[in-house]
């Protein structure tokens, strides 16, 4: 063939494709997944109205020093005013334990984000230890290397004692609501007909000193501790183990994979109330909302989910009347629409509804989405290695940055 014939072929093909594109300007002849989104971006408050924090990747821990907290935020514009109970409780940190529970979805797995909040608070107000962890940790933590032995044999967590999870599939849920403060519980001897079961959990903290163990379990469970090892015997429920100090700040990482956050009302009220009171829980951080985004394209559903979250907040307020609550909204999240990566249209809407709900319920709200820079910011995070290719999860570096920002934001609310 002559080159001009080849050129003609290329030109005709391109012309036909151009005509086709003209006929279907949106580019889609058919969809692999049909998607109908409504654009709510325009209804969102502008990013400039929200505080943008200075970049700070690491915060060097300093020796604890007593700080008399004083709330300085403007109550008309800053939701940190609702953290005043927590700020006030910090005065007691030198003499007693003050507990911060960080509940969240997969964004906080592996102790991501929480570890930064812990490091910053413990550096300023004292306290040691990584806090609570499940008996068998199916998802490794960056701060504790955990090993499980059943009757002396090394056992993978998935093959360990039966786990019940308030946020898991139906087969893992309990009717009595006894999940403990972490929303998950391990049942020793649950699957055995006879015979005693002995479980050894070895938990090696990675650079986090602690003073003593605490075992949250039924009274039928007996245990002994030695160094980084705890041995448990008997039949009953184990709600968690904890490495912690007796004074200062203890920050617990409680990830709930795939969870929308509408689970607390399924957890036994008496059990929660007792724990929150006895353990001086003074701040509850809830970091949810992200799991509602990918599968929900309808604003009505998002509103219903936020309504469900409001009920959880009210329930927790009732269970822990002395604690402040901080809600961390979802980060920017990406999807591919028409071949272009972009923010899920529901993220700004979800963020806006959550903020409104928080203010109405008198709880603090940290907008991860706006702090990141709003719609599309996840792409910039990906470019610099702060977010993964899924456009949803932070990398470890990204989680570190976000965790530091939250901690700084909390502390900046005081003198």
């Amino acid at each position: 063939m002559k080159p001009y014939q080849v050129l003609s072929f290329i030109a005709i093909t391109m012309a036909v494709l151009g005509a086709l594109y003209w006929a279907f300007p949106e580019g889609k002849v058919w969809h692999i997944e049909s998607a109908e989104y409504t654009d709510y971006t325009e209804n969102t408050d502008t990013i400039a109205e929200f505080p943008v924090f200075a970049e700070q990747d690491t915060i060097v821990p300093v020796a604890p020093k007593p700080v008399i907290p004083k709330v300085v935020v403007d109550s008309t514009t800053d939701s940190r005013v609702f953290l005043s109970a927590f700020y006030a409780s910090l005065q007691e940190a030198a003499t007693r334990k003050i507990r911060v529970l960080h509940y969240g979805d997969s964004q906080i797995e592996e102790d991501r984000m929480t570890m930064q909040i812990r490091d910053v608070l413990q550096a300023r107000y004292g306290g040691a230890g990584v806090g609570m962890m499940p008996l068998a940790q199916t998802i490794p933590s960056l701060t504790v290397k955990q090993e499980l032995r059943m009757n002396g044999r090394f056992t993978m967590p998935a093959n360990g004692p039966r786990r019940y999870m308030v946020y898991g599939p139906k087969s893992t849920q309990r009717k009595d609501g006894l999940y403990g403060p972490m929303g998950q519980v391990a049942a020793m001897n649950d699957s055995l007909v006879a015979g005693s079961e002995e479980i050894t959990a070895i938990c090696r903290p990675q650079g986090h000193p602690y003073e003593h163990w605490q075992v949250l379990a039924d009274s039928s469970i007996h245990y002994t501790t030695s160094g980084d090892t705890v041995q448990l015997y008997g039949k009953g429920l184990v709600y968690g183990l904890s490495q912690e100090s007796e004074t200062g700040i203890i920050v617990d990482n409680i990830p709930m994979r795939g969870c929308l956050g509408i689970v607390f009302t399924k957890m036994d009220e008496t059990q929660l109330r007792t724990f929150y009171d006895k353990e001086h829980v003074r701040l509850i951080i809830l970091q949810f909302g992200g799991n509602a985004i990918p599968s929900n394209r309808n604003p009505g559903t998002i509103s219903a989910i936020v309504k469900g979250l409001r009920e959880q907040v009210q329930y927790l307020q009732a269970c822990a009347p002395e604690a402040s609550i901080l809600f961390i909204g979802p980060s920017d999240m990406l999807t591919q629409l028409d071949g272009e990566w972009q923010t899920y249209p529901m993220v700004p809407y979800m963020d806006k509804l959550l903020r409104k709900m928080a203010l109405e319920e008198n709880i603090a709200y940290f907008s991860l989405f706006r702090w990141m820079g709003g719609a599309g910011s996840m792409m910039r995070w990906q470019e610099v290695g702060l977010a993964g290719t899924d456009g949803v999860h932070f990398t470890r570096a990204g989680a570190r940055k976000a965790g530091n920002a939250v901690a700084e934001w909390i502390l900046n609310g005081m003198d």
Partner: protein
Amino acid sequence: MEWIKYILAFDAEHPLLFTQFYFWGFFALVYALFALIMDRVPDSLGNKKLHLRNVYLLFVSWFFYYKTSGLFLMLLAFVTLSDWIIAQQIHKSNIKNLKSPLPKILLALSVTIDLGFLAYFKYAYFLTDAFNDLFGTSYSIVDKIILPVGISFYTFQVISYTADVYHKRIEPVKNILDFGFYVSFFPQLVAGPIVRAAEFIPQLYKPFRLSRRAFGIAVFWIINGLAKKIIMSDFLAVNLIDRVFDNPLLFSGFENLFALFAYSLQVYADFSGYTDIAIGVAMLMGFYLPMNFNSPYKSQSPQEFWRRWHMSLGRWLKTYLYIPLGGNRSIGFGTYFWLTVIALVSATLTGWWLGIMIPFGVLVAAMIIVPRVIKDTNHLKLFYSNLNSFITQVMGGLWHGASWNFIIWGGINGFGMIIEKIWRPMNWHIRFVSITLLLIGLCVADSMTSLPVWRLFAVWTAIVWVVTAIRYIYFLLEGPENKFTKALGTAWAILQTFVFITFTRLFFRSSSNLDPATANEVAWATAKNMVNQIGGAWSNAIIPEFLWSYRWVVLMFIAGMVIHWLPTDWKRRYRLWFSAMPLWTMVLAVVAAIAVIYQFVTADVQPFIYFQF
């Protein structure tokens, strides 16, 4: 002005790729001028017309490279110039004095320059860390080092040219612009195939020739490549593979395993798709590039796989590394040198100095003793060949980057080839006893430690044991060997090879697309987490749910594998059938294919679903 800048200037965010509309617009314009030269410049000008074409395509290639890699074009130009000059000098010295050491010195200089650049861009972080460890310093690389696109490919190409001139396999190219065209020809510049000078340079002096059938085949390769790249590769990667490799702990064992197998298809579709397009585009301009992939997952052994996978690299490594090491004839300085390099790099990366140096010492002792003890030439050949091919495989791994995972990847491939060579001629009694003992050992290891890695190996060995037992019984009963049993044997060999290669990819993919500063640490953690999930977080209950939720991904994977495994003859026939289509039908077929491909470009991504809590 912005659009002119967009068209002409380099933008790191938007490199020029075959899958972009920009490239095809660019190619159409390039081809228009190309057609003008070929059709309007009179043939009576002879070589001048060809020279004009070559110079034109050289500048087009440089523009293409500039759009892809920016000012790294200077590096390409420098390497081109240095190898052209050095090859000329080698040739002159060869003619003047056959015993002169100068050609060897010049060859060493050329290789040092070429590999020096490659080493800087690929190993600077590793070398800085190693230097700091050794001398207690704390140097660091201030600016991030960006790897110039295609540097591995054109480096290998210029080395092959200079080495071929040194060995007098080819005459040096007289005109530097022609040589520049050979090094920079844009279809294969970024991702190969690695073209040897002897294959390509003669084409520079031949007039344009493209038969009607060759045109059809070229169009077929382009469409085939685009479909592979966008449907099989990008779709699978975005919707499943990338997110699993990013964070294996978010996914169950089955999802990890599926993603690993899907990655095997993805990496093939991505790489071979790109070279298919390169071959097609080059053909349209009358240049013929060598085949680079020959249905590699049809291989019945790891050795065969490496003859079918990235064939141009395999040939390069054989010619310029394996044979100079001694091949199956001997072991010499090169073997000791590269083995020492591998041991030092491995020990530095892992910090296991004793654990690496002891086996290294044992191997060196074996290299000294074996040739003195074994007198049987065939056995010695096997020893040399295994050793040199093992080193070649590990060096092939290290070439991808300074990461422990790449070394493991190369090492497993090397071991796989050796074990297969030993296993195949074994008699059935020994085979059965060996696999039984291995299975018992793995089961004991699994029951004693419950480590997921033993569980993983034990399960796969159990499957191999079952098949081996059936074949062993069949052998003992002296069952007849016929077409059916042969086909079963072939299918089993293909499956085993595919599983083996897929397992090695666990280490390869974990090391890919990472920040070089932290690559080693992250890659190892990813590979470990994947093994732990596959061997320790398996759940049959979620498999149906996963298959249904990810049905498009699963269907694409199955379709990809089925097409891959279609008989070669069928593929050849439909290729020929396509190439013989009337041109207007071909236009419609191409438009239809692109419309389908485009649906995958614009498809929504698979939402995140958690199956394991």
